[in-house]
C-alpha cells in the first residue's frame, strides 16, 4: 500500500526539516510530499535535504491550491492513502500510523483529526473558537453527523476521493466546512479522530488577523450557502456526481 504525507508549506524553512525527520522516524515507508507555495526562503531546499519530494509553485497560490497540487501528485502516482498536515508544528505526526490504519481497515473515506472530539489542552483565541464551533455546527446540521472540528487541516484520505479533490469543484481558498459538505453530498464517508494539537509557535496561521478572520467567516458562509442552493437545485442529478456542483 502506497502512503503519502502531503504538507503545504509557505516560508517554513526553520520548521519543515524537523517535521519531515519526525515523520521519517515513524516510518520510512511514507513518501513525504512538501508543496512549497512560492516561499521566499529556503523551504524547498530544506525539505529536499530532509528527503521529501518537493513540488514548487512558481508563485504563491494559497493553502487550498497547494493542497490540490499534492492531491494531483498523489493521483498521478497511484497512492492509496494520503495524510495531509500543516507545516507549522500544530499537527503531531505520531497520529499518522493510527489514522492510516483506521482508513485501511474501516469503511471510511475521510478521517478528520479533531481537537474537540475529546477534551484536550488546545488553546486558541475566542474568535477562532467561535468560528470553529459555528462551522462545525453548520456542517453537522447539513450532513446530519456530529462534526466537532470542521476546520481541521489534519486529515487522512482514501485514494478514491482524489478525483473529486482535483476537480474544479474543489474550493481552492480555504477548503474546510464547505469541502466536508461537498464530500458528504458526493457519498464519501467522513469520520473524526480525536487528537491533541498544538498552537502555532510562530503565530503564522493563515487565519491570523482580524480582517482575515472576518473574510474567512464571510467567505465560508457564502460558500456553504451557494453549495446548499446548488445541492438542492441539482438534487435530481445526485448520481451524476460532483460535476454538477
Amino acid at each position, binding site marked *: 500500500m502506497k502512503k503519502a504525507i502531503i504538507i503545504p508549506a509557505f516560508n517554513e524553512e526553520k520548521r519543515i526539516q524537523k517535521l519531515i525527520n519526525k515523520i521519517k522516524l515513524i516510518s520510512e515507508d511514507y513518501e513525504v510530499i512538501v508543496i512549497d507555495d512560492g516561499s521566499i526562503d529556503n523551504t524547498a531546499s530544506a525539505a529536499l535535504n530532509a528527503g521529501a519530494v*518537493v513540488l*514548487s*509553485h512558481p508563485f504563491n*497560490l494559497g493553502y487550498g*491550491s497547494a493542497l490540490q*497540487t499534492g492531491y494531483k*501528485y498523489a493521483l498521478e502516482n497511484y497512492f492509496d492513502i494520503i495524510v495531509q498536515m500543516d507545516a507549522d508544528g500544530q499537527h503531531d505526526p505520531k497520529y499518522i500510523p493510527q489514522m492510516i490504519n483506521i482508513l485501511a481497515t474501516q469503511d471510511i473515506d475521510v478521517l478528520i483529526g479533531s481537537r474537540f472530539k475529546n477534551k484536550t489542552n488546545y488553546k486558541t483565541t475566542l474568535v477562532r473558537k467561535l468560528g470553529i464551533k459555528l462551522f462545525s455546527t453548520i456542517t453537522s446540521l447539513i450532513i446530519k453527523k456530529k462534526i466537532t472540528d470542521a476546520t481541521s487541516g489534519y486529515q487522512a484520505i482514501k485514494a478514491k476521493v482524489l478525483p473529486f479533490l482535483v476537480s474544479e469543484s474543489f474550493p481552492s481558498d480555504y477548503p474546510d466546512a464547505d469541502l466536508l459538505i461537498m464530500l458528504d453530498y458526493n457519498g464519501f464517508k467522513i469520520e473524526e479522530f480525536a487528537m491533541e494539537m498544538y498552537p502555532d509557535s510562530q503565530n503564522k496561521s493563515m487565519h491570523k488577523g482580524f480582517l482575515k478572520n472576518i473574510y474567512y467567516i464571510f467567505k465560508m458562509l457564502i460558500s456553504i450557502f451557494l453549495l446548499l442552493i446548488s445541492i438542492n437545485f441539482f438534487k435530481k442529478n445526485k448520481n451524476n456526481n460532483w460535476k454538477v456542483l
Partner: protein
Amino acid sequence: MTLIQKILFYTLSALIIILILVLVRKKKIRENDSWLWLLFSLFLIIITSNVLILTKLSDYLKVAKSIILIFLASIAFFILILWLYIIISNYQTKIKNLAQKIALLEEKIEKLNKRLDKNDKNLNEKV
C-alpha cells in the same frame, strides 16, 4: 439637447469607437472581447441620438432625466465590470492549473535527471 451638446456627444462616441477599433487592431484588446466595448459605445450613441427614449422613460417613471441617465450608465458599467470579472476569474483558474502543472512537471524533470545521472554513472563504471 442643443446642437453643440449633440455634436460633442457624437464626437465623443465616435472617438470611443475609433479608440476601440485601434486597440483591437494593435492587439491591445482581444477581438473576442471587443464586441462588449463596441456595444458600450453603441449604447452611448443611442442615448445621445434618442433623447426621446429618455424623455419617455422620465415621464413614465416620473423621475428626472439625469437620474435615469445615471441609472442606465450604472447598469452598463456594472455589466461591463461583471463581464471583466468573469474573464479574470477564468484566467485565475487557468493560471492556478498552469502553476500546479509546472510544479508537477518540474518534479518529474528532476526525477528523470537523477535517473539519467545514475545511468551515466553506471555506464562510466562499466566502461
